[in-house]
């Protein structure tokens, strides 16, 4: 369900833009290989938007283009109301401070402890006192459900699930308006994956975040995402809530639902919904 609550944080002066990300006519080529052939996409403020698609469908490339790591060949991308085309360096810096990115493999700096990693954006960009930065880093770490001892460890000493949480804590360091999560549950055990699902929902509540998730995790799609965009053959094959996509007849989308995993995740969602309804009527 789309959720249009106001962000609890930030910038009441700003006129609320209807969309945090607007992409139109986006084309990307690698040599002869066309990855994106005219992508149209809009992510609304305050929603959790998931981007799915088979391997090689250009999800990661699209993410890299949204976060200014790569230039598309044609088309426009507007993030938080700022066009990424010909963006000047100061504008890019200002924009980068307004979003947080959690990379698939964490992207934590191996030479720094977890707490130094989390505090780094604050230390670099703000003029806060050092002890404050340490306290805020410890708070962000606690928000992601990690025990305080983890702050003193190095990324190489962490397990996969801890790494993702620590990376999420760093992405939250500057209280972003927009959060990009690349495969937040890949490689996690089911319990950790469930916890990450819950964490994303809680953080959205707390900060009024808009979230863009790239994922293959069907449970995440059913339980967390408000809307899902399916990439296939270089285009967006459909954008809708998961329950609507499940009724789609588009063969590119059907691939996602017709496998045994797809059906299991859907059945799980139905069971949870029934349990929820039973709880309410009781």
């Amino acid at each position, binding site marked *: 369900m789309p959720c249009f609550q106001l962000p609890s944080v930030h910038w009441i002066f700003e006129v609320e833009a209807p969309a945090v990300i607007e992409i139109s006519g986006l084309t990307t080529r690698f040599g002869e290989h066309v990855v994106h052939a005219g992508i149209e996409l809009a992510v609304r403020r305050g929603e959790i938007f998931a981007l799915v698609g088979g391997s090689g469908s250009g999800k990661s490339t699209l993410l890299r283009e949204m976060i200014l790591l790569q230039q598309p060949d044609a088309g426009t991308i507007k993030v938080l109301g700022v066009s990424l085309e010909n963006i000047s360096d100061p504008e890019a810096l200002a924009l980068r*401070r307004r979003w947080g990115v959690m990379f698939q493999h964490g992207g934590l700096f191996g030479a720094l402890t977890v707490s130094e990693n989390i505090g780094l954006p604050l230390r670099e960009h703000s*003029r806060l006192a050092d002890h404050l930065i340490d306290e805020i880093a410890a708070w962000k770490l606690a928000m992601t459900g990690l025990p305080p001892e983890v702050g003193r460890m190095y990324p190489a000493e962490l397990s996969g699930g801890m790494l993702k949480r620590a990376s999420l804590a760093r992405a939250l360091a500057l209280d972003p308006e927009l959060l990009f999560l690349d495969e937040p549950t890949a490689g996690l055990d089911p319990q950790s994956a469930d916890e990450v699902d819950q964490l994303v929902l809680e953080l959205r509540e707390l900060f009024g975040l808009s979230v863009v998730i790239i994922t293959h995790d069907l449970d995440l799609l059913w339980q967390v995402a408000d809307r899902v965009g399916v990439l296939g053959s270089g285009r967006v094959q459909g954008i809708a809530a998961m329950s609507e996509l499940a009724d789609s007849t588009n063969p590119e989308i059907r691939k996602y639902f017709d496998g045994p995993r797809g059906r299991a995740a859907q059945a799980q969602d139905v069971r949870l919904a029934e349990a929820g309804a039973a709880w309410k009527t009781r």
Partner: protein
Amino acid sequence: MRPNLPIAKIAQPQPGELALSGAWTAFGIVGSEPPLPTPLPAAAGALRIDAVGIAGLDSAGAWVLETFLDRLRAAGGSVEIHDLRPEFGRLLDSARQRLEVSAANPTPPAAPVLSPAAAVGQGSVAALEQGRALLAFVGETALALAACLAHPGRIRWRPILFNIRSAGVDALPIVGLLSFLLGIVVAYQGADQLRQYGANIFVADLVGLSMLREFAPLMTAIIIAGRSGSAYAAQIGSMAVSEEIDAMRTLGLVPQEILVLPKLLALVLVLPLLTVFADVLGVLGGMLMAHARLDVGYAEFLERFLKAVSLTALLTGLGKAPVFAMIIVVIGCFQGFRTVGGADSVGRQTTRSVVHSIFLVIVADALFSVAFSALDL
């Protein structure tokens, strides 16, 4: 960052009332907290805080605000917040909870800094452990070598040839240039002294013996340690990081056999050859310098060179090269195998491999000198 947002401020419009304004955010707060108005609010009595002016609040701001309120409350008296925008309430509540939690369980203090004695002790234990691991590594490599020699069919010729090219042929220009320059330096340094005694011709002895016995083998080994030893450590280190070494073990392959032996065999073969090349160019450099500075003709120089330099001098120089080669390969590969963690570790191990192998090459050279003088060679 919004440059147009005013920085966070605390004002005191009248006694007993504080007015907060500006951006209470990571970018709107400078230092620990906004400057307090003077005189400070009276400790006792009710304090009214007017929060209507707060234009933006993020978690940094919420944290600062809550710690500030906490301090006011601790000073005694009640504190009331008025007109806080409702959308900020949740974050402030969250900061409040966090503050209570962290007050209840203070973060455990960082690990204490080691006393000098403990640091020395830990360093020694680490060094001993490394020495033991090196010994184990040498043993494993020797076993792999023995297995290969017992079944010559298992020797991997293609990587050996590849290593001969990358560590040997590709190093010819740099080894040649540096030994040529070294030959020039030796002759140049000796020239003045020899001329004083009219012993110009002995420049051939000086250049010949010093290059063949010492400088050529040592210089070549040091260049190769820097050039190839570091490459070995970096290659094996990044393979260890990406779990390729573990993959080899699980596939029943012996990493030493695949990664170490080809390098070892190639370098043991190639380093003496490079040393001969360095000998030739070093003597050539000395000969040119002798002609330019001491008027020693090329024919004279070579004639004297043949008399002064015995075959033993050449062989003692060349004999060291295979030992240096083993040191370089074993240390480079060993440090590579000890890589754990990420990119940072690869860099550290690579540096270590170069430092350790150059150190050990020079130590070995010193031992050779002692041994040769004892044997009267």
